[in-house]
C-alpha cells in the first residue's frame, strides 16, 4: 500500500507497511537520519517531528497517520540552521553528545510557534517528555528563552 505525505516540503509516495512508525519511514526509507530512535515508546522525545505544526513522537506514530499531511523534521526546520532555536543552541553550546537535541529543538519549536513568550513553567512542561542523559537541561531552558527573546535571569 502506498502512502502519500509531504516531508519538509517535498512530496513522497512510500510503499511501506502503513503501521510502520513514521520514525522508521523517515530514517530507513527517506534517509532523513536527523530524527533519532531513543526508546520506541514515546518516553524520551528523541524522535519528535512536527505533523501539521504539532510536535508528535514519530516512534509511536504509524506512518499512515501522516497520510496527506505535512511532516517537518529537524532537516526542514530551516534551510541553513538559522532558526532562532538553532542559533541559540549553537550560541549557548547546548549539545553535549547531541543525540537528543533534534527532538529537544523540534519540541521547543512547536512550543514557540504556539507560545512565543513561554513562562519557565511552560518551558519545563513542554520539554518534560524529552530526556537528555548528558544533562544539558539548564542550557536548554536558557536557549529556549534566548530564542524567544526572553531575559535569562
Amino acid at each position, binding site marked *: 500500500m502506498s502512502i502519500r505525505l509531504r516531508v519538509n516540503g517535498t512530496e513522497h509516495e512510500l510503499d511501506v*507497511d502503513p503501521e*510502520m*512508525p513514521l520514525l*522508521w519511514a523517515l*530514517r*530507513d*526509507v527517506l*534517509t*532523513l*537520519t*536527523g*530524527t*533519532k*530512535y*531513543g*526508546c*520506541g*515508546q514515546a*518516553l*524520551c522525545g*528523541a524522535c519528535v517531528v512536527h505533523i501539521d505544526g504539532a510536535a508528535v513522537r514519530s516512534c509511536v506514530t504509524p506512518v499512515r497517520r501522516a497520510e496527506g499531511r505535512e511532516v517537518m*523534521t*529537524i*532537516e526542514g*526546520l*530551516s534551510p*541553513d*540552521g538559522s532558526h532562532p*532555536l*538553532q542559533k541559540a*543552541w*549553537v550560541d549557548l*553550546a547546548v*549539545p*553535549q*553528545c*547531541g*543525540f*537528543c*537535541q*533534534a527532538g529537544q*529543538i523540534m519540541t521547543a519549536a512547536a512550543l514557540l510557534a504556539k507560545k512565543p513568550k513561554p513562562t*519557565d513553567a511552560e*518551558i*519545563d*512542561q513542554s*520539554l*518534560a*517528555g*524529552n*530526556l*537528555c*542523559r*548528558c*544533562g*544539558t*537541561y*539548564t*542550557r*536548554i531552558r536558557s536557549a529556549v528563552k534566548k530564542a524567544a527573546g526572553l531575559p535569562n535571569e
Partner: protein
Amino acid sequence: MSAPTMQDLRIRLSRRSVLEGLGLVAAGLGLEVVLPSRAYAGPMPTSLPEVPTEGLRANVFVHVAPDGLVTIVCHRSEMGQGVRSSLPVLIADELGADMAHVKVVQGDGDEAYGDQNTDGSSSVRKIFDDLRYAGATARTMLVAVAAKRWKVSPAECEARDHAVFHKGTQRVLKFGELATDAAKLKVPEKQAVTLRPRSELKHLGKELPLLDGPDIVTGRAVFGADVKLPGMLTAVIARPPVAGGKVARYDATKALAVPGVRKVVELPAATKPFLFQPLGGLAVVADNTWAAMRGRAVLDVTWEGGDNATYDSEAYREQLLAVISKPGNVVRNVGDAEAALAKAATRVQATYNTPHLAHAPMEPPTAVARVEHGTCEVWAPTQDPQTARSEVAKAVGLDPSKVMLHVTLLGGGFGRKSKPDYVVEAALVAKAVGAPVRVQWTREDDVRHDYYHSTSAQRLEAGLDASGKVVAWHQRIAFPPIGSTFADATFAGAGEMGQGIVDLPLAIPAIRMENCEARAHTRIGWLRSVANIYHAFAVQSFIDELAHAKGADPRDTLLEVMGPSRIVTLKELGVAKVPNYGQSLDEHPVDTTRLRRVIERVTGLARWDERKQQGRALGLAAHRSFLTYVAVVVSVVKDANDHIRVDEAWIVADAGTIVNMERVRAQMEGAVVFGLSLGLYGAITMKDGATVESNFRDYRLARIAETPKKIHVDIIPSDGRPGGIGEPGVPPVAPALANAVFALTGTRVRELPLVKSVKV
C-alpha cells in the same frame, strides 16, 4: 565507494615505536607515515576524503597541505565531553595554525595513534604534552624551511596565524608555502622540538566553539545508526534474558513470515568470563528496522538460563549485608582501629547500599559492518576503537590489519561503549548474511543487556573521643568486581580500591579498610566515575553523620576529617601504593590543600554559613577522583505536594590546567544531572537472573523539571598538571543530595536511590 583494505593504508612504522607513545616522531619515520585515517570529516562517512599525498605530514596527527589547509586528527571518541572541540585546538595552538583553516577529521581505530581508549577521563590528562609535541614538531619543520629560505636562524622566526614570521624584518611565509619543502626534511627528534611557553597557547583554558554544534542542531551530525551502506540490512537480536544463558530451541517460521524479514541467524552463546563477547541469541535480519523488530516480536524461542538464572538482586542485597558483617581482606591499615574503637567515647556505625545501574546513553548500542573480499569494514559509535577492531577481527577470523574501524559520533557513552560486544555482533551478522548489516539495539535491549554498574554494601564505623575528635575509622566494602567480567574475580581489584578507598585522605590516627568477597551474577562494567560512586556516597554521607553525632557543622567536620593542608604520603595512607588512575603520585599527589580549597569555595558560593537564617536545606560532599578535586553543594526544598525537589546546585572543581573551559563547565553541569539521576531514581533490579526494568518508564532518569533551576559551576584557576574532567563531577552529587535531604527532613538515607525511601 571502493573500500581499500587497511593494508593499503597501513603506515610503515614499527609497533615498538608506537608503543613508545609518540615515539614515531623520535624514530624519524614521520615522513613515510600516511595518515592512517580515512575517517569521515563531513556528513556521510561513506564518502571519505582521500588522504592527501602532498604536503607536510610530520606525524599521524597533523598534515599541512600546500594550499594551506591544516588537517588535524582527533583520535579520541566524541561522546559529548567535547574532545573534538578541544584536542585539535591544542595541537593547532602549538603549531601556530588558525582554526579557520583547520579541518578536524576523526581518527579510525589504529595503534598508530597510541592509546585511543576514551575512558577514565584520560584524553587530556594523559596526553596533554604528547599532543603538543605533535603540533610543535610540524611547527619546527615549517620554521626550519622559512629560516633556510631567509638565511636566518630559526630562533629569529616565529610561527603564528598560519604563517612563519621573521621577527627582525617582518617577512612572512604562509604555512602552505612551506609545506612541500618541509616534507623533505627529516622529522626532528623530540629533544630538538621545543614546546611553546603556556602563554603562547592562545586558546588554552578559553571557551572554545563547539565544533559539531552546527551539524547537531541541523540533524547532519552522523551517529552510529545514521550510517547507510548500499544493500544494507538491519538486524535486531533476541538475546538470552540471563547473561550466560543460551538458546534451547527456536522456531523462526513466524518471524520469517513477516514481510521484509530475510533471515534469522543464531549467534554463538557467551561463555564465562564474558569479556567483550556478544551475548548470543537470534538475529532477525530484515530490510528495515521495523520489519526486524516485528520479526523478533514473533520469534518462538525457549531460553536456557545457565548458572546466573537464580540471581535476585533483592536477595543479593541481604547477602552483601551478611558479607560486610564479617572481616574481609585488609587493604589499608593505620594504627590499631579495633583498639581505638574500643576506647572511643562515642561509636557511630552505619551501613550503606547502592544498586546496579545501567548506562542508558540516549543512543542505544548500534554498529554497521560489511565483511567482503577478506576484509571487514565497521562504523561504530565506540569509545575504544582499537579494542573494537581487534575483537571484530577475532570474531570474524581476520587479521586485524584487514579490519577498518571508523568511529562515528557517540550518542553518549558513559563507559557502555567501551565494551564492543555490539560491534562484534554487527560483524558476525554481516558475515553470516553476506551483506552489510546494521545491528540496532532497542532501548529494552540496552537496559536489559548492559554491563551493569556494580551493586554495593558498605559498613562504616567511627570512634570519637570525649572532645568529639574522630580517632578511629573502620570501613568494609563489598561489591561484585569488574574483574569478574574478565576472569573469575570475586574481590574488588586494586583499581577499584584506588577509587576513593586507599587514596582517601583521612586525618585519623587509626584506620582499617577491608575488601570483602562478592561474586558477580551478571555482566559488571564501569560506568562514569565507577567505584567512586558508591565509595563517595558512603564516606561523604558518613562524615555528615559524624558531624550530626557530635553536633558540629558538616563542613567543619569534613575539613577536620580530611585534615590540614598537606601532601598525603603513602605512609600516612597506610598503603604500599595507590593506583592513582595510572599516573605518578609525584606528579599527582593526594593534596588536601586542593581538596580544602574546593570545599571552602563551594560553601562560600552557596552561602553555607547563612543557610539557617535563609531557611535553606543544603548538603555538602567532596571527592578526589581521576586526579581532580570536586566539591558539590545541593539545595533541596519541599514542593506543594510534599515532594522533595532539588532547586539549586553548586559544583567547584580543581582539575589543574584546563584546555577548553567551556566544555569543562558543560561536563560539570552534566555531572550534576547524572549524579541526581542515580541519586534520586537509578536502580536496576534482577529477578530469576533477568533485568526487571526495560525502558525509561521504569529505569528513570532526571527530566528537565527535576533539574535545578540553577547549576553554578566554578573552576579553580590553575596551571598545574591536568586532571580528568568527564567523570570527577559525578561522585559527590549523590551524597550531597542525601545530606541535603537529611538537613531538610531529618531522614538519613543510606540506600540509593532516594526514591526508595523518600518522596521525590
